[in-house]
Structure formats: structure tokens, C-alpha cells
């Protein structure tokens, strides 16, 4: 097998039909190349999206109110309503499956102009009101200081936690923001922490560009009464959040006199469901990749087989002569099989390397491109695993053998006597 002569023979046979060998090789090359690039791109997309969401509590759901969609008990459709602070305790008391439940309020940056001032610096940021538990549902890294705590809530302290971007635009890089004051919509708040989001999901604006106040402080300073804009919950371990989601809707609708069949009044997102959909999507992409890739590869292999068959036909006489002067069937078969394997493996290996090379290149370019620190792209680290690469190489050798099988058996059917007979 590793005898130089054998390789020489193979090289001779392939080099003699350069164009055809190249065309055939290209079929296999293209098949593997496509497979690798598609698999890599799919993986990249998956990496990007899952990295952006992985930290998010998977068993969480989020609720917010909209105008009612159905008339009910004397109320017209299109009524404005909102959840309130009592709802939170009410839900906690009535749904034991709830693990965390936190309200969140916000003021937008609408209205234009900047709402945050510090000395000569000013900016326009989302302001949110949060409970300590919020960070357990939508995790954030605390870069400096601390997050909102129970005392902040109880005493309605005028403190705030700022996003990374807020720090960057309101402070000098070397400055320690903790203990400093920011004037937000006319009121001074002391900075207690700086955070960076761990997810790409954003709820009313990115965490990086937000300022979080204690929920109770916000209610008071913004005159919100006991309004709750938004509510986040997580289900206890082992309980599907969908069930809790339904329960919450049912109870809230009842409490606020909303038609049970009203689908619009209380809107929600269920992360579990989103994850499932996303996973389904990725599975679909993966399956599609492999189907298309293997299809292309198969076409390449069939091409090799076909070419080999033609070559065998052309070489009938040559094979006959070889047989007449002492080549055993085994020698002929192994020769043809090896030619086939060499053709598919070499071209496939090329496709593999160039495909992987391309992915690496994309990676490099993406790493070096000057994207702002936290503008995460939904496409990260496109790559194929070693297993995929190795198994496709294995598939290649197998494919080569397979492709050689028909031509080789055809060659075996050539009797030397038939091959040598004059036309």
C-alpha cells in the first residue's frame, strides 16, 4: 500500500487524464467545502445567538399591559389599564410555583434632549426601576460597586446603578464613579454600581445604556403611584414556566376585570418557548446543512465513480494486457480503488482545509473589526469541530472506496481475452 511504485502507477493514471481528474476532484472538493462552510456558518449563528441568551434564566416569563382587546362587564374594548404593586404580592401568595417575581418600571428617553447631567457632561439614557431580584432573572455582571438591595427599596434611597456605557459617557475612564452623583430629570442620585449586561436580550433599552433606580424610589420621584409597567417572573425548578405564565394571566385578568379570552390586554414573552423555537431552528439549520452538504458530496462521489467507469472502459485493453502479463485481479482492484480513494481524499482534504481556512479567516476578520465593546453580533466564532472534520474525512475515504467499487468490479469483469481481442 505504501509502495512507491503503486503511487507512481496511480499518479500516472490520474495525470494522464488531467482535465478529467481535475473536474472530478472539483466535484468532491466542492461538496466538502460547502459542507464545512455551511456547518461552520450555522454553528456561528448558533454560537452568536446562544451566547447572547444563554445566561438568561431559561424558565422566565415577562408581562406587560396593553389596551384591552375585548369588551367585558360594562367596560368597552380598548380600555387602558395597568398592573400595580399589589399584584406582585397577590401573585406571590397565589402561585407557589413562582420562584422570583419582580416588577420593573421605566421612563423612556422620549421627549428628546438629555435627561442625565453631571457637571459639564450630559446624556440621554433609559431610566428603570428595579428590585434586587431582577438581576437573578436577567443576569448582569457588576463591574464596580453593588446592585440595588432591600434597604434601598425600603428607604426609597436616591441611589442608582449605571450601565457600562453610561459610565463611559458620564465619567472619565480613570474616575471612580461610586459615591458620585448624577442629576437625572432634575433629581440627584448617588451612583452605587456599574453593570454590564450578560445577555443580548434587552427590555426597554439595553442595560449598558440604562440607569436603574430602586423600584420604590422611582415610583415616588416619578409620581407613578403604584403602577407596574412590566413584570418578570421565574418558575421554580421542575415547573414549566408556560404553566406559571398561564396562571399569572388568568389571575391578573380576573383581578383587573379583563375578559378571560382577551389575548391582547396582558402581553407576555416566555423565554422557555423562545429557546425551544430557537433550538428547533438551529436543529433545522443543522439538518439542512448536512442534507445539502451530503447531497453535494454524494454528487461528487458519483462523479468520481462515473469518471472511473469511463476510465476503465478506456483502459480495458491496458487492463487486459496487464492481466495477460501477470497482474492478479487483486492488484487491478486495489489499483483502481486506490486511485479512487486518492482522488476523493486529496480533493476532499483540500475542500476541508480551504473551508476551515475560510472560517478561520472570517473569525479573524470579525475579531479584529472595531466593533464597539458591547455591540454583540449575532454571529460568533463560526467553526467546525474536530469530530466533524475527522468524520467527514472518514466519510471521504469511505466514499472513495464506494466510488471505486463499481469501476473495480467492472474491471474485474473484463477478461484478458476480451480485452485483447481485436476489434
Amino acid at each position: 500500500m505504501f509502495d512507491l511504485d503503486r503511487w507512481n502507477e496511480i499518479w500516472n493514471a490520474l495525470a494522464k487524464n488531467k482535465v478529467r481528474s481535475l473536474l472530478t476532484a472539483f466535484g468532491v472538493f466542492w461538496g466538502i467545502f460547502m459542507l464545512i462552510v455551511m456547518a461552520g456558518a450555522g454553528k456561528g449563528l448558533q454560537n452568536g445567538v446562544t451566547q447572547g441568551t444563554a445566561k438568561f434564566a431559561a424558565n422566565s416569563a415577562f408581562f406587560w399591559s396593553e389596551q384591552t382587546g375585548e369588551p367585558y362587564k360594562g367596560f368597552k374594548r380598548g380600555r387602558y389599564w395597568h398592573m400595580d404593586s399589589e399584584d406582585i404580592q397577590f401573585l406571590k401568595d397565589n402561585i407557589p410555583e413562582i420562584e422570583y417575581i419582580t416588577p420593573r418600571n421605566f421612563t423612556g428617553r422620549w421627549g428628546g434632549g438629555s435627561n442625565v447631567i453631571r457637571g459639564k457632561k450630559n446624556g440621554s439614557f433609559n431610566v428603570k426601576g428595579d428590585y434586587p431580584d431582577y438581576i437573578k432573572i436577567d443576569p448582569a455582571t457588576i463591574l464596580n460597586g453593588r446592585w440595588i438591595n432591600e434597604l434601598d427599596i425600603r428607604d426609597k434611597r436616591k441611589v442608582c446603578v449605571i450601565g457600562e456605557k453610561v459610565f463611559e459617557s458620564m465619567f472619565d475612564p480613570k474616575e471612580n464613579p461610586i459615591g458620585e452623583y448624577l442629576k437625572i430629570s432634575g433629581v440627584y442620585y448617588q451612583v452605587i454600581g456599574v453593570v454590564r449586561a450578560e445577555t443580548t436580550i434587552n427590555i426597554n433599552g439595553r442595560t449598558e445604556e440604562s440607569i436603574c433606580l430602586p423600584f420604590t424610589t422611582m415610583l415616588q420621584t416619578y409620581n407613578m403611584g403604584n403602577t407596574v409597567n412590566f413584570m418578570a417572573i421565574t418558575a421554580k425548578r421542575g415547573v414549566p414556566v408556560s404553566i406559571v405564565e398561564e396562571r399569572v394571566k388568568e389571575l391578573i385578568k380576573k383581578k383587573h376585570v379583563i375578559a378571560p379570552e382577551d389575548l391582547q390586554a396582558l402581553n407576555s414573552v416566555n423565554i422557555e418557548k423562545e429557546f425551544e423555537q430557537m433550538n428547533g431552528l438551529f436543529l433545522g439549520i443543522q439538518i439542512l446543512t448536512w442534507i445539502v452538504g451530503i447531497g453535494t458530496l454524494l454528487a461528487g462521489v458519483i462523479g468520481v465513480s462515473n469518471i472511473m467507469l469511463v476510465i476503465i472502459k478506456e483502459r480495458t485493453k491496458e487492463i487486459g494486457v496487464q492481466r495477460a502479463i501477470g497482474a492478479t485481479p487483486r492488484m487491478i482492484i486495489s489499483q483502481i480503488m486506490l486511485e479512487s480513494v486518492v482522488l476523493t481524499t486529496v480533493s476532499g482534504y483540500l475542500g476541508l482545509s480551504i473551508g476551515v481556512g475560510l472560517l478561520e479567516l472570517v473569525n479573524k476578520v470579525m475579531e479584529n473589526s472595531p466593533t464597539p465593546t458591547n455591540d454583540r453580533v449575532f454571529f460568533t466564532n463560526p467553526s467546525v469541530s474536530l469530530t466533524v472534520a475527522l468524520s467527514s474525512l472518514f466519510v471521504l475515504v469511505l466514499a472513495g472506496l464506494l466510488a471505486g467499487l463499481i469501476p473495480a468490479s467492472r474491471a474485474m469483469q473484463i477478461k484478458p481475452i476480451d480485452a485483447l481481442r481485436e476489434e
Partner: protein
Amino acid sequence: MIQIRDLHKSYEMGHNSLHVLKGLHLDIEEGEFVSIMGSSGSGKSTLLNILGILDDYDRGTYYLGGKLIQGLNETKAALTRNEMIGFIFQSFNLISFKNAMENVALPLYYQKISRKKRNQIALEYLDRLGLKEWAHHLPSELSGGQKQRVAIARALISQPRIILADEPTGALDSATSLEVMEILKEINDQGKTVILVTHEHDIAAMTKKIIKLKDGVIEEVIKNGELLAFKNRVSTE
């Protein structure tokens, strides 16, 4: 060397069967120089192919060097051919993408002799046939006579005991034919059995024994001593 008894061979073609060899007896001793003659379609090539184990037969027995040649599998047949028999064809049958030396060396490749060694041996054989300068030429760059000499070198290189040649001079002009026959005669003088098929009486007359095929059996065997008479006879015919 060769002993054939009651040999039958027919070709099946659809529903028809063509009975070509019909109970043929033949004995050839080691070192003989034999030509097979007969009209076209009389079965000369068929017989030669059976002798060369390129084809099998239906009935009878064929002993080659004391070994019964019957129902050999392809591998055994190939090995026996490689070891015992050298072939020379009318149309040379050189491999077009190999040069003269590589063509000659090919049988040794099947014997797994190293490249260097077999090329060296091939060069020796080419030298003996006066083709040393042509060793690195492709067949397409050689004349018919040169090609046939390359083919002869290839037949000889595995040092077979028998040389089988189907109309070795069929594609050559008469001067070149004579050259080739001289070479075959030399080979025979060195002790090898040479069996050739030919249409030409001149060629046949250069051998030591002529076997005439007719209707699937041997019609006549003309031995060395009778060759002169044979020559006279054909010249008056």
C-alpha cells in the same frame, strides 16, 4: 511441456453455439519452435489463448509443464502466466503512457521486484534487442518493428519457459518480419519453447514444426525434416 487431449471449445452466442475446437490432440516438447497455421476462423487464436490460460476450454485436458490447467481462478491463472508464459501480440499491446523501459519492466512489477532493479533488468533486455537508445521513448514514438521488439523484451523479462505469439509479424513489413523471426529463433536457440500463429508460409517455414488446423482438429503436423518438402509444396500451390 504441453500435452493436450480431446480438447473442445465452443463459443456461445445467444442461442447459437459455435463449436471451434473439436477434440484436439497436441503435444509440444520443451524447446520446440512451432507455428500454427490454418485458414481464417479455424481456431488458431482460440487455441493459443487456451494455451496461454487466457481462456478456458469446455472438455478434455491440458497439461502445462506437468500441471493440469483446468478451472484455475483468475489469481492462479495470472500467477501461472506471469511465471511460465510470455506473450507477443500482433498489435504489440504496449501501454501507451509508459515508456519502452517501463513497459518491458511491467511483468517484474507484478513480481514485486523493486523499481530500480526491474528498470535495470529491462534496460539489459532492451540492449539485447538493440533498443537501448529508445528506452525512454513512448510507444507512439517507435516504429512497428521497434514496438514489437519492445513487446518481445517484455515477454522475455520474466524468463518464461514458453513464448506465445499470435501473428507477431502480422503488422510488420517483410524485412522487419524477418528480423523479428530471427529474434524468436535466437530465443528458441536459448532453449525456450516458442509457439506462434501465422498466415504466412515463409514465416512458418522458419520454425521447426508446423501444425495445420482445420475444422477444429489438427489436420497435419509437418516436422523439421519435412520442411523442405513443405516449402516446395507450397511454392507449387
